[in-house]
């Protein structure tokens, strides 16, 4: 086993603002191949799988990371290797991985161009949280069309504010709405545009928490709900409910047992400043809540990806093409 620290490599790579988690994971894995001393394909794949597992365990939100790892490993497994020279093959695989990342960096532009065609002049768009691909799409649309944007605040991380600030900086009229005010705002909206953590085999969407309720509201108001997803975010997963997501754990949404009065607060932190045992702070709420949620495919109008604009069902076709057979 090498002394290669895959998680640190991954963390380092993620510092590059442009790299999304699946790509960082793929790059980390290519570096792993470089360092690897594996002599056979079987060994190599095993090493990679272990590395992927390590990443999975160490990152707080591993879903899209997993999508990238799975893609890369599946590719390597299926890569035809007629030549006997294993080190040549490794070089080739490394080259493939790096080349793909370079190529994948252009996908956002492609998606933006694709989605651009669906944005009418003078539209009002609702978006959720912060997404690089959504940003790119909106910036591109702004250059040629008059758009205005509603951004949800996206508690608990509040990334919607980041979106709003960036949009305002380039002169796009923008307004932050509370997550709880989406239903209030939806009638003013022409369509909803969100990014994604992953798109799963059912065609459903995994994205920052809140997406699901926006989709439900949009459906109720008969507004199109579009998701933007690079194809490396296609994830071979078939969740049937929110709680099938790998990110779900029993701690989420657990009911705090009401403590009998008078009991000491041993279980809680030893924080001295604590005054009121029943007080709930934002952090607690955040901890007790999911980061991502799952949106059913029937709520999604279209998925824009670098391979084309797809109906949610269309996504599964690609996943089947890669992983089945």
């Amino acid at each position, binding site marked *: 086993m090498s002394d290669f620290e895959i998680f640190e490599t991954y963390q380092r790579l993620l510092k590059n603002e442009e790299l999304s988690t699946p790509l960082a994971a793929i790059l980390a894995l290519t570096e792993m191949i470089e360092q690897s001393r594996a002599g056979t394909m079987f060994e190599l794949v095993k090493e990679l799988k272990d590395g992927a597992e390590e990443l999975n365990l160490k990152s707080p939100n591993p879903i899209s990371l997993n999508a990238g790892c799975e893609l890369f490993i599946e590719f390597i497994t*299926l890569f035809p290797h007629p030549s006997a020279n294993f080190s040549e093959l490794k070089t080739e695989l490394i080259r*493939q991985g790096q*080349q793909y990342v370079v190529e994948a960096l252009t996908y956002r532009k492609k998606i933006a*161009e694709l989605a651009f065609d669906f944005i009418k002049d003078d539209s009002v768009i609702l978006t959720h949280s912060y997404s690089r691909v959504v940003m790119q799409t909106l910036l591109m649309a702004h250059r040629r069309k008059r758009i205005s944007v509603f951004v949800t605040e996206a508690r608990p991380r509040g990334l919607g504010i980041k979106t709003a600030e960036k949009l305002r900086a380039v002169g796009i009229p923008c307004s932050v709405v509370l997550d709880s005010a989406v239903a209030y705002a939806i009638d003013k909206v022409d369509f909803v545009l969100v990014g994604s953590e992953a798109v799963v085999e059912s065609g459903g969407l995994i994205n920052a928490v809140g997406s699901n309720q926006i989709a439900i509201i949009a459906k109720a108001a008969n507004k199109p709900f579009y998701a933007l997803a690079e194809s490396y975010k296609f994830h071979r997963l078939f969740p049937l409910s929110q709680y099938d997501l790998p990110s779900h754990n029993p701690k989420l949404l657990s009911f705090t047992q009401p403590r009998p009065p008078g009991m000491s607060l041993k279980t809680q932190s030893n924080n001295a400043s604590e005054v009121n045992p029943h007080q709930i702070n934002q952090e607690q709420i955040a901890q007790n809540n999911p980061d991502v949620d799952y949106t059913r495919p029937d709520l999604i109008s279209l998925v824009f990806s670098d391979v084309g*604009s797809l109906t949610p069902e269309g996504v599964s*076709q690609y996943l*089947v093409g*890669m992983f089945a*057979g």
Partner: protein
Amino acid sequence: MASDPQMLANQRIVEDLASRLRRRQVVGSRQAALETLLVLRQVVSRARFSNVDQLVDVIRSVGRRLVDAQPKGRAHSFLYEYADFNHGSFITGTSEHSVGNTVRKVLHHIREEYHTATEGSTPAPAPTFSIAKFVSQGQPRKQQTVQKNDAAKVPLKENDPDDPDSFARTLKPVLMEAIQDVFDELETVYDNISKNAKDHIHSDEIILTLGKSKTVESFLKAAAHHRNYTVIVAETAPSFVFSSFHDHGLTRHFTRYGGREMAKSLSSAGISTFLVPDSSIYALMSRVNKVILGAHAILANGGMFATSGALLAATAARAYSTPVVVCAGQFKLTPLWNLYHEYGALDFGDPSSVLGFEEGDLVDKVDVVNPYYDYVQPELLDAFITNYGDHPPSSIYRLLKETYDDEDNEL
């Protein structure tokens, strides 16, 4: 490359069809498809090419010209093309989608014929792999064609420097045959759609239809041979009927109340028929067993464009959970998605059938909107009956993939 007179002749027939399309002298999707096919046949028979790419280029350029000639006919495809951003601006709309569809279909057939013809004669180029390709095309294994050595095949030599025409000479008869196949398919489209009509319509049913669609008409008449049923026809005022006839070499159309003509035709075929005003569709829906509609174009998401009024019927049908069935030829399958976002996609006619020009006083004060089509969402439709079998809206995109090659979605 190609000699000038040939190029000119091609250009002339293409331009001729283009302007007739623009002037709405060719109307109706089947008519447009037939005309396109005629042009393509001439183009292919005249074209000089020494490899398949040249031929594909020629046909694509013709297709592009024809589609561009109808400013409303060019729309963005659902598969991303590496188009320059400057050209990628939103172009959409509809007049005759079947023109582009026919071109795509012919290209698909040509490639198919080419692959069959070249199988074995040229060694398959070593497949190149990349993750991107892996994503978009799936597992590499599937692409590897099983090498078949068929010595009996005439060797096809591409880019033969000694005899640049040899490739064309060998391939042309096959290609012409392929085009003829498409032609035959168009000729028989109504029969093929209607052949299972009796399975869809049962005795003593009440069927509601809208306006006049040749496809629906032949479908209903075919069913009438086996079943005794009733049709309610909504008149779709002031709808447009494309009864084409030839006059001075130009195809002409007249705009009339489509439903009236339809009712006349059906009742003369011995079907018990009621003609009703559009406004009564909802009221009658509770008694209707099935709604059968025609389509102008079937879109990739499973929705469709159909005579205005279709949305009304489909929505009313939804309220009563009445099944909505669409009869349409395969040539109406259009690999486009986003048309319904565009107001202009509905293709607006002149206001005269709504408000007489002689109403001078009003003309100045009222804006009259007279759309040809309704966009009907896939959720409102239950099945498409095509000459390639019956499909639910959700599998239309699959059908599209089989019918056309992805690279042609944007001509």
